[in-house]
């Protein structure tokens, strides 16, 4: 296998370029063009007016977590601790209890995620054998005035619905 060598032309050696001044003026012409364009019509700025105009979130986007449920509304999680073991940031804390409705042996009594610790890597979603935890809520801005409210428990995780329908999620994500 031969290596292809491409010799780039080295710029900046001619006299005019060495004076700098003309090259500087060229650059200034470019920036002034941008200023003038935006000054004449500021609707052409390449910006999203963020808090009012939200960005579009794709199903693959790893947002805030949620816990999924069976059809009858019971929690899918079986407290196998796979996600907690896998978590590189150690932000998931599960406490298991006995399950009485016969769907499995264990059920999480507590399922806390410290969102300040979470690095949104998605390993918990990949590790889950039951497809019980997902990051498809589309919530990308986790902000609050105190630490307690970003320490989410099982009730909040169960209450949040996914932002995409099942088919779209399957196509995009898993």
């Amino acid at each position: 296998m031969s290596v292809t060598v491409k010799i780039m032309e080295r710029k900046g050696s001619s006299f005019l370029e060495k004076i700098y001044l003309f090259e500087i003026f060229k650059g200034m012409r470019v920036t002034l063009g941008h200023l003038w364009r935006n000054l004449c019509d500021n609707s052409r700025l390449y910006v999203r007016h963020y808090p009012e105009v939200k960005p579009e979130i794709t199903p693959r986007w790893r947002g805030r977590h949620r816990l999924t449920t069976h059809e009858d509304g019971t929690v899918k999680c079986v407290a196998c601790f796979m996600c907690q073991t896998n978590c590189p940031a150690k932000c998931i804390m599960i406490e298991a209890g006995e399950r009485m409705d016969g769907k499995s042996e264990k059920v999480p009594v507590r399922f806390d995620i410290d969102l300040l610790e979470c690095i949104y890597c998605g390993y918990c979603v990949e590790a889950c054998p039951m497809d019980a935890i997902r990051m498809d809520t589309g919530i990308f801005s986790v902000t609050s005035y105190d630490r307690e409210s970003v320490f989410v428990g099982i009730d909040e995780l169960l209450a949040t619905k996914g932002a995409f329908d099942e088919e779209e999620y399957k196509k995009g994500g898993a």
Partner: protein
Amino acid sequence: MSQLDILLVLLRVAVGAFVPLCFIAVLVWLERRGAAFFQDRAGPNRANIFGFRAAGLVQNAADGIKLIFKEDVIPGHSAHKFYFVLAPLIVFFCALVSFAVVPFADTLVLEGKQYIMQGIPMDLGILWFLAITGFAVYGIILAGWSSHNKYGVLGALRASAQVISYEIPMGLALVSLLVVYGTINLNEIVHFQGKLLFGFIPMWGVVLQPLAAVIFIVSAFAETNRTPFDLAEGESELVAGFHVEYSAMKFALFFMGEYVAMFVSSSIIITLFFGGYQIPWLSTETLVAYAKPVSMLLMGLVPVAAALFCGWMMKNNKSHYDRPNDPRVREAKVYRIIIWMMVVVVEAVLVGYLLYAAGGAADRILVVLLQIVTFLVKTFMMCFVYVWVRWTLPRFRYDQLQLLGWKMLLPLALLNIFITSAVVVALS
């Protein structure tokens, strides 16, 4: 001291001291919005008072209030707290005082008395500017040294070495300029530039001394520590340079000092190279002689300018997303009313002038006002060039900076002196 004297002293002090201070706000605004538009962004456009954003100027007020109420930290590890407090004061004060000799209008003659239109009536001219800008180095050195911080010391080292070495090409460029003008008095320099070369080109310094203009402007950029020579505060390597340890109003003083220095050096560049307060082709005598036609022309131009500006504003001052009852459109409507009211006031004043006061003292006052406006517009444009260059060029490397200063600008300035002196001697 008659009442007139006191009034004119007040005017001088107002323009000499408050215009640089007001320009801080304008320049910070210009820097932010200009930077944003150069980079296809919007810039600060949210801060408002009852929905009035004044094109983003309100953001400056918010920042000012924030800086006033922030905790003022004096680092405990600093062994020389006196110098630590003194340094920002030196920087700000020097920047402000160096404006005192820049004439912002021609000498006003009222009732046989002459009133020199500059902050301090003193004919040291450009020497005063050189003397005072030299002092600003103390502030930088003391700030970096007394904060006892490696970034601070490195930033101060860079800044002071840069300022000291660029003062030399600056001074030499000035020498050739002074050879041409034959005076150090800035007002006389501006008078000189009111003449015409070959009868149709204004004898501006930039026409007579293009090389000196380039050298002086480059050195002025370096003196004010602005991009492309702002490695004193190169944030990627030195965090912020000599003012890392400063907070609250002490930091604000450095910040404001930087912008006042930018304003002052723009005004000096304008005065030396771009005709100062002179309106091109219209010297003071011409303006006084033709005060009536000029004011009639103004009466025609002011509404046209206002209409153009209003059209532009109504087109651009609106929200670019669905918003019921858009407050920005309402804001623009209020601005439009204010602008037209101002136009009406200006027209009324001009009509009053034409009917009752034309000829005599009012002509001269009108001319002085026109020249102040010209001076401010020109200085604003030069400040815009500062901003423009800042958002176009990347930062120099430190050795490149010193090479440019010592190996390019210094020999060029010396060469320029020789050529200029030879030409001046040959012509005289």
